[in-house]
């Protein structure tokens, strides 16, 4: 295969990474932007989404697409329920104090990981894609499902964006983000907003996971990688800035995928993590964020 088609293939693979990364990172960014909580367990919500997707598809049966649609609906709901519980039982009691919540979500990470290991097991299990057709390019065939992942992620992101900017719930959320005490004074139920945002953030990670399990397998340790990438994305995009996060997801998804495709993936990750550290030190508003 000559270089041009090879590059096209690499770009398409990277777009899949970028699409799911954008979903995961927007979830993390929403939670940080609104609640100032750095959720270290975000990757475990992703993992939980994938594991639940496997349980749902296995127990539903019937044609593959039925199980997949059920998973796409149920897994994020299940994860959102776990997140709401975590918010109510732990984060709220800590009064969302930033450093304490980090320690607490680290604890949550271990608990969720252990729960997955105990109930799901150490195996990596595949989920069947809802459909199997290949798009034939002149140089290679390409999975139609992967293209679907890209479109689905874009659709969800548009829905989130619409919800945040056009709906009343979005308005309330943004008001809470600006100043929680003022919001409370105006009669906004801040506790409910926080629980809702935390659930939404977790659900976005779960949706990304359901979309990705037909390509990658579900495994109880799969949360680390998306957490790290989502962190990188949110920081490079500017903490709490959604537009910056999406742009960063695209850049990082593409560069991480492309570098990894041509060079060593480890080297790509070393450079990416160092980049994040240096961005936070020298340009804390992010590479794409406006100055605070």
């Amino acid at each position, binding site marked *: 295969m000559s270089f041009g088609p090879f590059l096209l293939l690499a770009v398409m693979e990277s777009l899949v990474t970028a699409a799911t990364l954008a979903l995961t990172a927007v979830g993390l960014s929403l939670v940080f932007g609104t609640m100032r909580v750095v959720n270290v367990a975000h990757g475990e919500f992703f993992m939980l989404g994938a594991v639940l997707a496997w349980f749902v598809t296995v127990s539903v049966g019937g044609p593959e697409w039925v199980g997949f649609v059920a998973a796409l609906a149920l897994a994020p709901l299940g994860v959102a329920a776990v997140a709401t519980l975590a918010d109510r039982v732990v984060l709220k009691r800590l009064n969302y104090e930033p450093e304490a919540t980090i320690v607490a979500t680290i604890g949550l990470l271990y608990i969720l990981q252990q729960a997955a290991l105990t109930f799901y097991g150490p195996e990596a299990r595949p989920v069947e894609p809802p459909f199997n057709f290949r798009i034939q390019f002149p140089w290679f065939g390409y999975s139609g499902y992967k293209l679907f992942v890209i479109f689905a992620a874009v659709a969800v992101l548009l829905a989130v964006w619409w919800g945040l900017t056009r709906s009343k719930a979005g308005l309330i959320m943004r008001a809470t983000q600006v100043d929680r005490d003022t919001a409370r004074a105006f009669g906004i139920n801040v506790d409910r907003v926080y629980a809702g945002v935390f659930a939404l953030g977790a659900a976005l990670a779960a949706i990304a996971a359901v979309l990705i399990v037909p390509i990658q397998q579900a495994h109880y340790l799969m949360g680390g990688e998306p957490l790290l990438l989502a962190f990188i994305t949110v920081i490079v995009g500017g903490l709490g800035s959604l537009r910056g996060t999406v742009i960063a997801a695209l850049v990082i998804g593409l560069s991480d995928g492309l570098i990894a495709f041509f060079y*060593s993936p480890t080297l790509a990750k070393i450079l990416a993590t160092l980049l994040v550290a240096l961005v936070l030190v020298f340009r804390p508003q992010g590479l794409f964020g406006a100055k605070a």
Partner: protein
Amino acid sequence: MKAKDTKIWIAHLAVLAALGVLLAVLPAYHATNLARILTLAVFATGYNLAFGYTGLLSLGHALFFAAGVYGAALPVTYWGLSPLPAIALGCLAGGGLATLVGLLALRTAGVSFMIVTLMFAQAGYLTLLYFGQITGGDEGLVMPDATALIPGLSPDTARAVIAFTLFAIALLVSLIVIRSRLGRVMVAMRENEERSRMLGYNPFTVKLSALVLSGLFAGAAGAGYALLFGYAGASFATIQYSILPMLYVLMGGAGTTLGPLLGTAAMFYLVDGAARITTATLLVVGVALVLLILFAPKGILGTLRERGARWIP
């Protein structure tokens, strides 16, 4: 004042003496466990200087620990360096990396500081993987065991002697530091940084000193751990080894000299005990973290001190 000073020194020396006796009389299996606890407690004691006394919540101490592990293990494995200078090298490697990380990371604070340190540690871990042919990567390097540590002593005895010496130095140095002017200023930075700046203290130098000291402790602990148990691996640089000292310190009591030892021992036996009844040991770590931060953020000794034992240093 003088009487109080004497009391504190006697208390610490008594703890050390008790540990020495325990190491001497315990059967080999338990003595080895205790050596492991003491080495990890050196790590926690160093972490406490940064986190407990100075308020620097780092998620990157695994990097300094791993620097100690490899700072000692590589020269021993490849150039046949003898163990004692190797521990010194590991200690310096930890302090050196802490200096580098501190120079950059201390330009940030709070949550950003946590993430920056986390990222540096992650980069360190990936670097160890990248040079896997030298470092052994995730599988690690198996080194000649403690048999060769101190000529003429049995491996168990040598292990006990080295672990005890490392911990005794760490505890006493930590006690001296926190009772010195630097120690008081470290606490001042934790309590109110802006006030301290306006009393003429440079926050950057104070925090850097604390972090470097902490890195030296972590390096010494890493070197000791690698040599005593004959193994070095990239896994020592994973986030888990940054969480552990935090957990030990939270458990025992942040900002107390003996808290790290107490927390390390308590967690060790908690996980050890849990491992007898269930394989879900991660759950113990997770639940302990959540419960501590929710209900006892001051830890065992911190809570005791609050309940009236104000003399606990």
